[in-house]
């Protein structure tokens, strides 16, 4: 039974520091992953969440470990914000037996039930109907859990989005649909793929409360998440949150964002949520420079350890080819 921790509707110092810690963990981990991939020590696709760190951080700081998170290929920020341990995450990126999925799934399918991360999908939109099933189970069991499912702006144009939001509303499921609107789906600009001004305008199609929020603003993002979580936990049904943001490092590794006009990218980078958040903490007296620097030092040390752990972990044994296909081992 998930305890109803009561999080304040507006974040205070403790809450903001919590969120910031998650943001910094995401940013530094992403930067390290990109560096290690460039060095050739790990071969994997990677979809950088650089620029979108605040969104899951503000949400997950208000979730219990047993609340469910469903996410997508661009899921690193969600995984870390929800508490997937660094070592197992890194080992999965490295395809090792010690990874959270024994190396079988890879970064696009990170799963860590203890942290509530139960589905990471590589198919656009497909996490949405699955999130409904998780939430329905919670509703039936009365376990008080909330399910959060993350996806992009482009995903709002695929059938699964429509089917999923309609069902969630009909069944009043305790689920939160978080659309990170980073203005691009692969190389296609929002306007070229989406025939509506804001994704949140689509909530009306499902009689679902919906809001657009600055996903780079930790206070706004906290408040939006608080409202949606409170609604879901109290039986009020689903919410659609459209969090406006941007991605700074292209769609996937190797993508130089050449299709994004330079001025658009520059304007977006000016709104980089991380320095903005740091400034907010310092100016609001929530933390000192030294404290914030210490956070980074600690994370970097953890990353050193995790990278080391991953790269020195064994590869999965060939016998694994026959396991986890079914419950029973088979001769595959």
């Amino acid at each position, binding site marked *: 039974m998930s305890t109803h921790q009561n999080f304040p509707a507006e974040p205070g110092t403790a809450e903001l520091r919590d969120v910031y810690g998650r943001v910094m963990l995401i940013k530094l981990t992403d930067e390290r992953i990109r560096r290690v991939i460039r060095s050739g020590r790990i071969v994997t696709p990677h979809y950088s969440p650089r620029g979108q760190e605040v969104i899951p951080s503000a949400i997950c700081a208000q979730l219990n470990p047993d609340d469910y998170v469903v996410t997508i290929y661009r899921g690193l920020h969600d995984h870390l914000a929800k508490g997937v341990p660094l070592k197992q995450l890194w080992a999965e990126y490295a395809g090792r037996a010690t990874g959270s999925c*024994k190396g*079988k*799934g890879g970064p696009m399918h990170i799963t860590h039930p203890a942290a509530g991360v139960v589905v990471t999908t590589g198919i656009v939109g*497909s996490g949405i109907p*699955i999130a*409904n*099933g*998780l939430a329905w189970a919670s509703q039936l069991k009365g376990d008080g859990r909330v399910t959060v499912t993350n996806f992009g702006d482009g995903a709002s144009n695929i059938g*699964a989005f429509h089917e999923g939001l309609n069902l969630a509303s009909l069944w009043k499921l305790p689920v939160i649909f978080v659309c990170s609107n980073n203005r691009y789906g692969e190389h296609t600009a929002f306007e070229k793929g989406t025939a509506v001004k804001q994704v949140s305008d689509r909530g009306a199609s499902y009689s679902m409360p919906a809001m657009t929020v600055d996903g780079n603003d930790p206070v706004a993002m906290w408040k939006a998440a608080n409202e949606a979580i409170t609604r879901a936990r109290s039986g009020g049904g689903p919410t659609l949150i459209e969090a406006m943001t941007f991605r700074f490092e292209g769609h996937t590794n190797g993508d130089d964002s050449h299709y994004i006009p330079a001025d658009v990218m520059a304007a977006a980078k000016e709104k980089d949520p991380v320095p903005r958040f740091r400034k907010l903490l310092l100016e609001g007296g929530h933390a000192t420079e030294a404290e914030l620097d210490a956070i980074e030092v600690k994370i970097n040390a953890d990353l050193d350890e995790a990278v080391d752990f991953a790269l020195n972990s064994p590869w999965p044994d060939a016998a694994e080819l026959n396991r986890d296909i*079914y419950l029973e081992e088979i001769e595959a």
Partner: protein
Amino acid sequence: MSAGADTKVAQITGAQAVNMALTEAMENDPTVLVFGEDVADPEGGGVIKVTQGLSTRFGDHRVKSTPIAEQAIVGAAVGAAIAGMRPVAEIMLMNFFTVAMDQIVNHAAKIRYMSGGATAVPLTIRTLTGAGNSLGGQHSDMLEAWMAHTAGLKVVIPSNPADYKGLLLSCIEDDNPCIFVENGILMFTPGDAPPPGHRVPLGKAAIPREGSDVTLVSYGRPVLDCIAVADQLAEEGISVEVIDLRTIVPMDEAAIFASVGKTGRVVIVHEAVKRFGVGAEIAARISETCFGKLKAPIERIGAKYSPVPFSSALEKDFIWSRERVEAAVRKVMG
């Protein structure tokens, strides 16, 4: 199953067997959920009444009619299964799998593997299909070959009411995702009711007729014609063994190879399109394993390489027939 028993054993249809299995499963295990289009009692308990009574008995929280949204249906099953439930989702007709293939193939089938066993998806998808009712090109397809090609799924296609019940219960209780394919004619065909608590294990073929000259391998509705042909040819002294596979995945290879070891002659019969169908895999495996033991080329009977025609004049020649089965048996007899 034995002839002459029909005076003693109660008769039920496939549809009744499914209803009994669902009722029993829901009684035994509170995590069993039933949902799909029109399945609850306010909607008549299914358009052919297969789920009638369940929502009244077990509550409309466990038995739910859904919107027309197969991705939402299978997705909800995947999620609920991950969260520890045993969902039984209904996709009204197998052709509608085509709008939910992503959830079935990329998710239900793969999530255990992709998570390295951290999560599991013990769901069952029931569906109805089959030719012979002039329902045409989009309401009659047998797509089990697609399912069988997808590792991670179990695929079950029963041929009689007792197996409908026993196999469906086994699917629901199985810890893996199972596809359970019902036939539009068998659902209304009576047969012996099984005893209470009856289970049929997944992966175990039935041998409704033993024989020594020819092996007929089949599953689903054509099994009835295989049995009829075996009985008829027995009168001529041709001894036909009929293997009813019951589950396509896992497949009871041992039963097939043992029979072929005896007979050396094989006819495979299924309702699905022959080319690239399940029969190809069965034939290939037999040829590989029983090489040198075969006395004649394997005969495969399946539907023509075509969409399902509407006109009954064409539909009857599109699928297998008793005559074609008989002719194939005579052919392998040489």
